[in-house]
């Protein structure tokens, strides 16, 4: 059974329908990429999964329907969403942002290790733990957003465009960490990206969205060989 199953997911912004019945599966332990042009509905799909917007259709997490649950409850089931624009608390320090990420944690003993783990994963955050999040560089902010999401010890991590606005070297660094989170930590990742090349390089499966629908899906290998797809969606 896949960890996340989506079937016929629909969502609207006011009168405008943004998702026209999306179906996808994310297997436990995988990294799954969601690709597509601007406005294809990638971010909306993540928001619909994590309960930030109203949606209809079936979403099951770990076999349990979550499409009527509130965002607060879905987090409690172990789904961490690192949103578009990162959603950091800019006037909090790095440390307090991580504390917020651990808001639901009750296990204070093991929590200490996780703070340490965050600083092992992202040494630069360790150096800046007392700095206000708003004053970090873009790359550091993205690292903090991911580190904060991991403080929940999620089973599923939803990542919205971690490469957005970052220099290529930083993007490489962040994707290495995403890979190690998945490989070493066993965290399942659903990754939204514009940068198709790098997203395909880390994922086991990918979906390409177009105007609120899944246009194509397959393994990275299959998508790379699909020439029409390369021209129209992936742009390389």
């Amino acid at each position, binding site marked *: 059974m896949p960890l996340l199953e989506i079937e016929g997911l629909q969502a609207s912004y006011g009168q405008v329908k943004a998702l026209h019945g999306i179906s996808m599966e994310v297997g436990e332990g995988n990294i799954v990429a969601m690709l597509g042009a601007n406005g294809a509905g990638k971010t909306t799909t993540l928001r619909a999964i994590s309960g930030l917007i109203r949606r209809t259709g079936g979403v099951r997490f770990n076999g349990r329907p979550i499409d009527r649950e509130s965002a607060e409850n879905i987090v409690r089931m172990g789904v961490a969403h690192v949103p578009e624009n990162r959603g950091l608390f*800019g006037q909090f320090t790095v440390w307090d942002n991580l504390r917020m990420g651990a808001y639901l944690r009750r296990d204070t003993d093991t929590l200490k290790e996780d703070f340490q783990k965050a600083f092992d994963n992202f040494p630069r955050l360790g150096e800046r733990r007392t700095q206000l999040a708003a004053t970090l560089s873009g790359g550091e902010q993205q690292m903090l957003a991911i580190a904060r999401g991991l403080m929940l010890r999620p089973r599923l991590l939803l990542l919205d465009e971690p490469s957005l606005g970052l220099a290529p070297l930083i993007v490489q660094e962040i994707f290495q960490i995403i890979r190690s989170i998945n490989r070493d930590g066993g965290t399942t990742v659903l990754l939204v990206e514009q940068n198709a090349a790098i997203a395909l390089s880390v994922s086991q499966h990918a979906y390409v969205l177009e105007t609120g629908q899944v246009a194509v899906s397959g393994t990275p290998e299959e998508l790379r060989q699909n020439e029409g797809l390369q021209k129209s969606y992936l742009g390389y």
Partner: protein
Amino acid sequence: MEALLQQIVSGLATGGAYAGVALALVLVTETGIINFAQGEFAMISVFVAWTLIQCGVNYWLAFAITLAVSLAVGILIERTLMRPLEGAPHLNSVMATMGLMAILNSGAGFTWGYTIKSFPSPFPEGALWLGGVALSIQHLCAFGVTMILLLLVFGFLRFTKLGLALRAAHQDPQACRLMGVRVGWIFALGWGLAAFVGASAGIMIAPIVFLDPSMMLGPLLYALAGATLGGWDSPGGAVLGGLLVGVIQNLVGTYIPFIGPDLSFGVALVLIVGVLLFKPAGLFGRVRVRRV
């Protein structure tokens, strides 16, 4: 010099109450609005405490019961009256608090009457002589109790997870939900804490200003001035601002003869306008840091 010190200390006593109400206002501002009924909340609390004491309840027991009830009622009011306005323009909520202010004021008049009542002070009368300066023990103690309660609230905001969430909800409610915070309840908690702080400030100031349904109108205005002076996004600044306003009010009333007690309301307004013109973030308010 002695007179000056005396004026400062008695200014601190009333300033402590302004500081309490100012902190209450700032706690509610976390939810995006100013609660103009904050003073009336405190006034009702004082009447509740007065009624309990009249029924023979021990002063400090009445004090504790009133604070607990205020906390609960503050939460309840947010959940029942303000919640339906969530998502509406903030002006709607602010107008609702204005309405609440009028209702509570006349409700208190209807229930307890408009005659001015005296409120007991648990502290001994008399003065503490400090190098030729007589400081009122009642004023000092009222100030002390208010400060202790404010420190408690600060400890809560700074060192507890709920306090952290309360401050986070102010910055980004949606990100807060993604951390698993039930933001609606956090906002309600802000209202409850505000009512708690306001109640203690009201009870401490009641022996000085006496008890009647309009007793908190002045303190509310001074608290608004204090919060503006200290900075609306800085709880500590609001407290210091409230204290400063209390002292300034007293000094100005004493040393600038033509102002006297009549124009001291005006002092608060001049302060508000002046601060907004020359230092809009207030003395301790953060000018938002942002990397561009």
